[in-house]
């Protein structure tokens, strides 16, 4: 069974803290994605990676960075968390070729106080 896992389901952090969200996939997918999900806005792409050490900015990269040192792992970093980064964060992966379906993790609900 294909699987995308995220390091935490719920996370509470203080303003100014550095926050790491980790995502691991076991499908040998080239593409990996980080989205944030907010009511009424759907999913907005923060960053995606199409290969190890490669990354592309999405629609809302400000305040975030990413790291992909291994094919199966994609990390999202909030350098200095702010209250407006309180959200649900979803990780996904997909094949670069073929059907291009994205497989999603369970999400991390981050609260910044």
């Amino acid at each position: 069974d294909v699987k995308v896992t995220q390091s935490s389901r719920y996370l509470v952090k203080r303003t100014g803290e550095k926050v790491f969200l980790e995502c691991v996939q076991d499908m040998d997918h080239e593409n990996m994605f980080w989205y944030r999900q907010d009511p009424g806005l759907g999913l907005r792409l923060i960053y995606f990676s199409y290969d190890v050490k490669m990354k592309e900015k999405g629609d809302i990269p400000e305040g975030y960075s990413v790291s992909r040192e291994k094919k199966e792992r994609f990390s999202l970093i909030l350098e200095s968390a702010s209250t407006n980064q309180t959200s649900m964060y979803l990780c996904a992966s997909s094949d670069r070729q073929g059907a291009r379906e994205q497989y999603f993790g369970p999400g991390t609900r981050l609260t910044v106080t």
Partner: protein
Amino acid sequence: AQTVTQSQPEMSVQEAETVTLSCTYDTSESNYYLFWYKQPPSRQMILVIRQEAYKQQNATENRFSVNFQKAAKSFSLKISDSQLGDTAMYFCAFDNYGQNFVFGPGTRLSVLP
């Protein structure tokens, strides 16, 4: 920039009835993928159905089918014989082969017993 619009924030349908969710998108590309994803309450996002833009035939998956109108840039989802387990957020999504990944704001569907 590509955009995806879902004009129905919420919908409801009686069990065993048929419901259609609307999606329109804006792109100047001629080749792309369109998807419908389902996010049940507190559960992971999963693919419902996909459509490749170069295929004229509408995709079907059991009780789920789409009406793809390329010229009108419309991609609606029809759910037949609705079941309680169909209660979820439904997201329409666009993928133009790695250039853009865009999700709509979602439609919350409630299936009523």
